[in-house]
């Protein structure tokens, strides 16, 4: 049995030393250090190990190895990294769906224990209930909170209009396109107004045009909302276009490798983000870091997500 107990003396979290040097004087560095300001989301030296059955024994797999992260309130942070590097695990830890094996996850000053209902979670699959219409899906979180039927209908209808789905309130998910289902799923998550949004490759399965349109819509809904977003993606263009900061992870066991501050001013035009003079430099900086992680053993993804 290969059960390594996580030790603090293993690799130190790298994000401190790894911040993008000289990435624009205009970008205020959001310190991962010891600022007095309370972070919206904070991971403190988090380890997460998974067990996998293997024959008669059990394999232990290290998904996260000493990850520390501070996300300021209202900040949009993307996490990129090779497949299986523990990106989704980080979101699951913040949502309280998983508990850290060691270390602490703190959301708005409170350690996460059990389900963290302060956050909204948008997954790669839309996870709409197929037996509910758009309206009933979007109204669902309000239903659980005991909001009266007429008020939740009104709120759901407003959100549906906001994501551009008016006219499809009474359609079932199978009658909608992938992009429309994604809009409905985002509207549903916003229905209960979570302070932070966790997004796990939300636009991954969509076609290129739809993806950009939804990125634009997401930005317009986010800007000025004060909502904190942690966004996992494989798409570096998307990461640069949307985020204040992009964190690059190492391949498994996942550690933070470097962060790049995206100093493109807002509001941004995602349709022409490539045309911004800063874009190629930022993209290249992230890609260089990522390439090192992919390059060593090709593109072989590790186990887990």
């Amino acid at each position, binding site marked *: 049995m290969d059960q390594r107990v996580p030790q603090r003396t293993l690799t130190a979290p790298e994000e401190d030393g790894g911040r993008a040097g000289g990435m624009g004087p205009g970008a205020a560095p959001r310190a991962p250090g010891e600022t007095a300001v309370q972070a919206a989301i904070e991971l403190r030296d988090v380890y997460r190990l998974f067990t996998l059955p293997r024959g008669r024994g059990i394999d232990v797999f290290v998904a996260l190895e000493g990850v520390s992260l501070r996300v300021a309130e209202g900040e949009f942070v993307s996490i990129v990294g090779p497949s299986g590097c523990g990106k989704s695990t980080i979101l699951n830890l913040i*949502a309280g*769906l998983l508990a850290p094996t060691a270390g602490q996850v703190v959301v708005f000053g409170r350690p996460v224990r059990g*389900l*963290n*209902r302060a*956050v*909204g*979670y948008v*997954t790669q*699959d839309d*996870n709409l*209930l*197929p*037996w*509910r219409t758009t309206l009933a899906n979007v109204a*669902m*979180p309000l239903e*659980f*909170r005991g909001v009266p039927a007429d008020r939740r209908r009104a709120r759901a209808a407003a959100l549906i209009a906001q994501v551009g789905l008016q006219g499809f309130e009474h359609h*079932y*998910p*199978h009658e909608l396109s992938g992009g429309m289902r994604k809009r409905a799923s985002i509207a*549903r*998550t916003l229905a*209960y107004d979570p302070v932070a949004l966790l997004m796990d490759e939300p636009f991954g399965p969509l076609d290129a045009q739809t993806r950009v349109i939804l990125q634009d819509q997401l930005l317009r809904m986010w800007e000025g909302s004060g909502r904190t977003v942690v966004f996992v993606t494989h798409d570096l263009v998307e990461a640069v276009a949307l985020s204040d900061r992009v964190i690059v992870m190492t391949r498994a066991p996942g550690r933070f490798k470097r962060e790049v501050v995206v100093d493109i001013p807002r509001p941004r035009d995602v349709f022409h983000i490539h045309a911004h003079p800063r874009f190629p430099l930022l993209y290249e900086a992230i890609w260089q870091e990522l390439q090192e992680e992919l390059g060593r053993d090709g593109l072989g993804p590790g186990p887990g997500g």
Partner: protein
Amino acid sequence: MAVAETARRAEVVQELKAAVAARERERRRRERGVILAGRVLIVLGLLASWEALSGRVLDPFFVSSPSRITRAFVDLLLHHELLVHAQYTTIETLAGFAIGSAGGIVLAFLLTSLGRLYEMTEPILVALYGIPRTALAPLFIMWFGIGITSKIVIAALFVFFVVFMNTVAGIRSTSPQMVDLVRLMGAGGGDVLLKVVLPSALPYILTALRIVVPTAMIGAIVGEFISAQRGLGFLISRSTFEFSTHAAFAGIFALMVVVVLMNAAIGAVERPLMRWRPQQRASGNGG
């Protein structure tokens, strides 16, 4: 000039649309007609060859013939209380179906909801499931008498395991990620069960209910064969003992009618419940 051109095209498109739609409607209508005619012809052909072969190649004493069966059917209907027998069997089947299905569904939810109870009881249930239920039927007659109760219990027993196993499979098919997300959205345990797990399991449950209608009838008939004074099973078994093949066939025909009606009823219940699913149309099958 350009405006006129646009208007002309719109007109052409209108005409084409109407023509294409009409052609498609006509094609479908004809296709449905062909299938229906084919069905009728096949049935008539089978009946005609049965009629023709019976008495020439086959001994009508053993295989009877459609005309004799029809006469026997009318005779039973008019003089021997066919409807009463059919009513008994229908009641036994429906009651057994309802009790067995409800029991299977409820037990499946109980065992999968309470900790590891399902894993604990699974070997016992599988062992019980392995017993040929026909072998148990005489015991049930002994315990519950030769009246209607024993047939209902036997029919319920025939139905129970199939519904139970399918419901467990349906509950297991619920997406764990969906459950996680719904809980994150504020759902309590009851919400998850009623609004996520139950609808997820529903297609499995409905499939089981559909499969199990004839199964319930088998249970009722087995019970009647063993010991009864009424019911279509009793009628068939008595007719066979009396070497009245045509009456036996008439009873079997009545059974078929009852099952077809019950299946139609299940379909009528199922359709509105399954409206959220993408339609899976068998091509050309008019429903």
